[in-house]
């Protein structure tokens, strides 16, 4: 049974009220201590694993060396036999027997290291898995508590001020109305800009003497002179 169940039970039991915790502070601290312990175990297990793997590699190299040495000496023994030097062959055979024994010992040690390393690897994996799960659970408790406290802060803040959270419909309507007003203003501004640009074109045309001409004093004077 996980922490999710505890959280739900607390919710159902009405623990969502301000000031009431999902899991009491003391058990959260114990839980955090458990996580730290697991982290320490993990570090120790990893260090031990490195050590055992180094020994395993060393033993494995020794096994290889002994195997090479045995096959080398077997060659010598065969050659001695070919040369019918029975005494020398016997001497080499004794050496081989000694090497065989050493090899058996090294292989057994190697197998032990391998088994030990496998056990440690399993332990590391299991501890890591457990640690991740502990951290996930602790994060759930802490997040739940944090959201509850945050909600309490928000509620208090709105209770103590003139502003308040409106209901959803009213809020949306007001936002939409404001947006509409903004859009209307934007359209109006665009229309105004269009009119202004029409005007400036008109001015340029007038300057160039194209289109409707404005009456001015000179023109009036010219007209009067022409009447004479």
């Amino acid at each position, binding site marked *: 049974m996980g922490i999710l169940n505890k959280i739900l039970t607390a919710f159902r039991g009405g623990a969502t009220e301000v000031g009431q915790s999902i899991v009491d502070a003391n058990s959260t601290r114990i839980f955090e201590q458990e996580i730290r312990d697991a982290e320490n175990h993990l570090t120790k297990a990893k260090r031990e694993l490195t050590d055992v793997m180094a020994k395993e590699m060393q033993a494995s190299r020794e096994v290889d060396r002994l195997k090479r040495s045995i096959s080398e000496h077997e060659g010598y023994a065969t050659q001695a036999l070919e040369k019918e030097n029975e005494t020398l062959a016997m001497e080499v055979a004794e050496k081989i027997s000694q090497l065989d024994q050493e090899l058996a010992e090294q292989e057994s040690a190697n197998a032990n290291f391998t088994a030990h390393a496998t056990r440690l690897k399993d332990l590391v994996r299991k501890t890591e898995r457990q640690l991740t799960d502990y951290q996930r659970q602790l994060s759930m408790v802490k997040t739940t508590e944090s959201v509850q*406290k*945050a909600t309490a802060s928000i509620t208090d803040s709105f209770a103590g001020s003139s502003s308040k959270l409106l*209901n959803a419909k009213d*809020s*949306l309507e007001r936002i939409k109305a*404001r947006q509409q007003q903004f859009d209307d203003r934007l359209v109006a501004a665009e229309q105004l800009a269009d009119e202004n640009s029409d005007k400036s074109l008109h001015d340029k045309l007038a300057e160039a003497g194209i289109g409707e001409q404005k009456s001015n004093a000179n023109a009036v004077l010219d007209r009067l002179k022409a009447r004479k």
Partner: protein
Amino acid sequence: MNIHTIANHLNDLCDKSHTGLQFDCYPIDGEVEVLQVNIVGREEIPVFVSVTENQVLCISYLWGEDEVNQDRRLAMFETMLELNIPMPLSSFAKIDDKYVIYGALSVQSDMQEIELELSVLSDNCLEVIDEMVDYLK
């Protein structure tokens, strides 16, 4: 990362916003500090931001249980579940007797990601209320 670094960033944005929205931030005191982020033009529906050990939580209130048309409550739940995945970055939730949408980010997120989160959350909020208004009284 705390609510003050977020507030300073958002308040300093002005016209340099990547989302086209302008933010006004007001820290709210309490056992857990909360940042009330008002979006200009949408002040009625603020986003509340709190920072925990490993995540930044952004929450907007949709409506209270008392606003829900109780005959359509089940249909509302179904719609919420159906919309939960299509709705970008935000999810539905319930805190006490209030329905909310929220987004959670890693505390390692950069400010531009938080800005985007807030803007998408606010857009989602307006759209959700608009779409689901039939479930309300």
